[in-house]
């Protein structure tokens, strides 16, 4: 899916590299150097998502997010920053950003997060409790899941993992994203927790000899087939 993105970043060299990599993934990317230019550009044109550096001259990233949200502009915003402290992250999300990524970020990771935010928007607008992905149905509120109409018994964490995968079916979820959203950790464990739980989930989803619905994206993460 080709998206129209705006990259707000004062470090020209870094911005150029990142923009080129995002273009390589098939997106249209515009680059502006500070917060005021960003506000002006967003007023002028419609973007699918904003990639916003946190620390910039003139108008910093946090103020841009606050201004946009005050004006009722709901464009998805992903904050990009060199600050890795947990409190910075909370500040960014509280200001109204949709996600928060620490530099340096691999383009695939950023791409996965942009798509996840867009998909999440579409999902939340749908007033439904059950999530469908192929022949898989998940009901997070009743803690139940089915495959091909047959109930699957899942542990709490496995159900949360399947819910997150199903919610973003067809999109790539990186290990970091899963650790953040399913486990709720603000650190990346050095053990292969995600891989272990994906393996367990796979076993339970293919118990009746069905096809494996989870695709491994080597070196990046996982994706549930839609």
């Amino acid at each position, binding site marked *: 899916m080709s998206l129209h993105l705006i990259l707000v970043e004062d470090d020209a060299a870094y911005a150029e590299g990142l923009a080129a990599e995002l273009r390589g993934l098939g997106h249209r990317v515009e680059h502006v150097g500070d917060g005021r230019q960003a506000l002006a550009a967003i007023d002028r044109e419609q973007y699918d998502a904003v990639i916003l550096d946190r620390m910039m001259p003139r108008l910093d990233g946090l103020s841009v997010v606050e201004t946009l949200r005050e004006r009722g502009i709901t464009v998805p915003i992903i904050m990009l920053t*060199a*600050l*890795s*402290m*947990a*409190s910075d992250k909370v500040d960014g999300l509280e200001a109204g950003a949709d996600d928060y990524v620490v*530099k*340096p970020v*691999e383009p*695939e990771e950023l791409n996965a997060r942009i798509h996840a935010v867009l998909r999440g928007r579409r999902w939340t607008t749908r007033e439904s409790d059950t999530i469908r992905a192929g022949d898989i149905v998940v009901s997070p509120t009743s803690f139940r899941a089915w495959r091909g109409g047959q109930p699957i018994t899942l542990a709490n*964490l496995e159900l949360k993992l399947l819910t997150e995968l199903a919610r973003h079916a067809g999109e790539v979820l990186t290990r970091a994203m899963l650790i953040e959203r399913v*486990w709720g*950790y*603000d*650190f*990346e*464990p*050095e*053990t*292969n*927790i995600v891989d*272990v*739980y994906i*393996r*367990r989930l796979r076993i339970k989803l293919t118990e009746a000899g069905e096809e494996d619905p989870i695709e491994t994206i*080597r*070196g990046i993460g996982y994706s549930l087939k839609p």
Partner: protein
Amino acid sequence: MIARVIRRLSLRGLTLAVLALFLIATIATGLSILAANRVTVAQLVDRRIAAIADVVLERDAGEGVPATATLLARMAQLAGERDTGDVGLVLQGADGRVLGGNIRLRRLLPPGLSDLRTRDGITGLSHGRALVRDAGTGRRLTVVAETEPLDSYRSARTRIYLIGFGSIILIVVGGILAFSRLVGRRIAEQRATVEAIIAGDIRHRVPVTGSADEFDRQAAAFNRMLDRIGELMEAMRGQSHDIAHDLRTPLARLRAQLAAMAAEASRPDQAARATDALAQCDTLLAMFAALLRIAEIESGHRQAGFAPFDLPALVEDTATMMMPVAEEAGHQIMVAVERSAISFIGDRQLLTQTLVNLIGNAIKYGRAAGTIRVTLGVTQEGWTLSVADDGPGIAAEDHAQALRRFGRLDQARSATGHGLGLPLVDAVARLHHGRLVLGDAAPGLIVSLILPRA
């Protein structure tokens, strides 16, 4: 020698030593002055009574020993004169009978000079000197004079001395105590600052009174030093972000290339080597993450986010979550959690990370198909969270080395770690005012986090 003793004295010791020296010197001076005063007065009085005795016993030219009548006449004359009227005179015969005079003696005084006291019963005399001279033909002339010019002169003098020296002592002792108090207080202020900084608050400064004294200059210099350290720390923090930024980006690219190579390799040995390189790349990335995490913890910023939470539940949940990971590696996890009414106040994420790390270590370094014991106990001190494996453990003499950054132990612990796992746990313990203890699980390693009550 003395310099060395002085250097070794504490402020309190020095104060007490100076006080003692001062007291000894002052009291000795007072006593010496008192004694000298007495001796001088006695000498003057002695000279005076000797001169009076000379006048009484004077022999006229060509005459023999003066007759008793002559002596008594001279004595009467002296007693009548203004400047010798206070002197007591008595003439005794060879049989001790009083021949004449203006005083009465209660005892026989020895020949020559002697002291007199109140008990000698001479009217109006409490302290004095007496001179007994041979007046010829067995007679004795006794001349008596007071050493006190006034009544109760001695007690008045003692009072004057007590008031004089006493007030000097009081002023000086008070001064020294106030001085040592002041010095102690200013030093305590500096110590409080140092303690606050050790506790992680680098923004703390020594108060400056504005009096521009030695202490103020010292405090100002100290504060400038702290400013400089703060700047350097800030620069270092910035630098670690720069390092993370500058090195992680190429590392991330390298990782992506290695992943592609591993996937596309035509020969299995090539794939294996690429996978191996990929693992090393991940270790490097994990090392950056751990370094930045330790820097974040040591900056103390996370203390602002401390909140009460259910620690037993966290330990149980995290251990349960890690069970499948341990099972895949062939280990089993046993959990024993003691419940308690006291709630724990701290950083939920950091304690979770700590436990995940410790269990991860136990999986990595424990005996194959071993048991990992996770326990949470409540003691007098607070909470004790322990993770024990039944692997080869760490020798007691290597415990300190294991807690040092990059202090990875070569043989016992295999070469897969990056040497920042235990230092990170140690930093988490210190952030919670606790400590990390390594012990022998016989066999195996037991790592305990002692977390005091808030």
